[in-house]
């Protein structure tokens, strides 16, 4: 039986503290009555009230949500297809450059991706705005979806598909009734990842956006550059709360699906 050594426990505790204390401080100070971000002036929700009057920020949030929803949907379709191509089609022609194009965006510095996409849009005369940001985010996030779905496909028992096909089930129907339910948790995780990456992105959006399409990170960044502000703490707290709830629900759903699978097999 393995046991955690004191060294293990200390590194785990310190590691988690390092990850969570800054976020915790941010959340606590969003309820600070004082305008000074570092002096505690009592509990207050005034910064949340101030947010409700900030139209520009709300518009930016809506723009971001729209782009995230559209790009995550597109990215999920394209990324799932890419994952299927990489795991199921063997060595088709052009597989190597295809795989390279899937993995490269994962580590490519954002300034390069952003600049190159902007130059493309300028070269073809595509007017910049929410649509170009959506295309840019789809390109980046479909690769993350592909990797997530691919790992789910790699651990998948292919004899199920073969059995269905031996019994005369056409390929498309096999995919929809056998493959899809099994890889669905991977696809859902990929969608969430794509959604949150899009919602989070500042650099690529700054390059590819145009007038009238200010996303939430661009808005927050322009405020933050001028210094620390309690309103921003409040925005961040809302953001953190929403993502925490979504991620925890998603991981619970995945675990339940996995447990069900473990029972049925």
């Amino acid at each position, binding site marked *: 039986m393995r046991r955690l050594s004191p060294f293990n426990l200390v590194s785990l505790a310190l590691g988690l503290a390092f990850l969570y204390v*800054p976020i915790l401080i941010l959340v606590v100070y969003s309820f600070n009555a004082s305008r000074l971000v*570092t002096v505690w002036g009592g509990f207050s929700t005034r910064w949340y009230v101030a947010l409700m009057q900030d139209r520009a920020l709300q518009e930016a949030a809506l723009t971001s949500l729209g782009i995230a929803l559209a790009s995550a949907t597109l990215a999920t379709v394209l990324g799932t297809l890419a994952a299927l*191509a990489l795991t199921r089609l063997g060595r088709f022609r052009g597989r190597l450059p295809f795989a390279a194009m899937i993995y490269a965006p994962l580590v490519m510095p954002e*300034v390069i991706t952003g*600049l190159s*996409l902007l*130059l493309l849009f300028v070269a073809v005369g595509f007017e910049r705005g929410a649509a170009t940001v959506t295309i840019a985010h*789809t390109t980046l996030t479909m690769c993350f979806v592909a990797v997530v779905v691919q790992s789910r496909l790699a651990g998948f028992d292919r004899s199920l598909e073969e059995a269905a096909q031996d019994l005369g089930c056409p390929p498309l129907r096999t995919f929809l009734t056998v493959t899809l339910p099994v890889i669905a948790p991977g696809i859902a995780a990929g969608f969430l990842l794509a959604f949150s990456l899009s919602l989070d992105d500042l650099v690529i959006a700054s390059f590819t956006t145009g007038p009238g399409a200010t996303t939430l990170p661009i808005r927050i960044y322009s405020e933050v550059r001028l210094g*620390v502000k309690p309103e921003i703490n409040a925005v961040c707290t809302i953001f953190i709360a929403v993502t925490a709830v979504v991620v925890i629900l998603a991981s619970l759903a995945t675990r339940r699906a996995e447990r069900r699978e473990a029972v049925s097999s």
Partner: protein
Amino acid sequence: MPDVTDRRTSPGERLIVALPYLWLVAFFLVPFLIVGRISLSQTAIAQPPYTPVLDLSAGLSGIADFVRALSTETYGLIASDDLYLFSYLKSLQVALVSTAILLVIGLPIAHAMARAPARLQPLLVVAVMLPFWTSFLIRIYAWMTILQHDGLLNQALLALGLVDTPPVWLATDTAVIIGIVYSYLPFMVLPLYASLQKLDETLMEAAADLGCPRWKSFWLVTVPLILPGVGAGCLLCMIPIVGEFVIPDLLGSSETMMIGQTLWTEFFSNKDWPVASAIAVVLLVLLVGPIAGYEALQSRQIREGR
């Protein structure tokens, strides 16, 4: 596994490949060619702000004029001005230092995660991942609050009597490295955890039974086996850090710029598209080796996973 290599691809399968393939060619590959082409141009006060512009209506002579007007002048500028050289070196230095720190901090955390009771492990993975899901910008902003002159770090240091005068944190390299280590920690911990978790523990037990001290068996048995995970983690962090923009911009000083900031300034402030493109091309050339290494590790991992 059945051999699918010699099977003929059906139209449906061709569509599966074609859609994502064409998308990536159009929006990932072609843009790089355009970056390369604009890096060979000169700045102009025009729309778009560079010259020459290919004029297809002039036919073949238009193309010939276009090709003659291309020049490598921007690359000469980058090579001759120390500003760019320092910027590249600075980025490399920050990336190497922070990747080393990430490895030193990440390894004990990943090791503890892999040794935790199996029931707890998925929970720990979520716990490490969760900060990554909250916005990147928010996490850097959190550190701005902590590191500012009258911030919580200095308050704590003064209260503990560790310093007499509050040290300056913001606008220093230390702040940039703290921000980078904080933001990239999940990217280091998770690949390390994945390879430590797959490790066969009986190997360590065998080493212990034969009288090998724990630190020595870790060095002689564990480390060689997790080397691919270490490589993947280090590259996954190091490559994007080299081009990092937001962290040095918000936490660093404006005097020593990392290359991502230099590119950003050339593009947005100086409106010099050709120089920004040339910086991107040089950066890409520098990173081609590490990126290829990362891809090799990735595809190996996926092959082994099957």
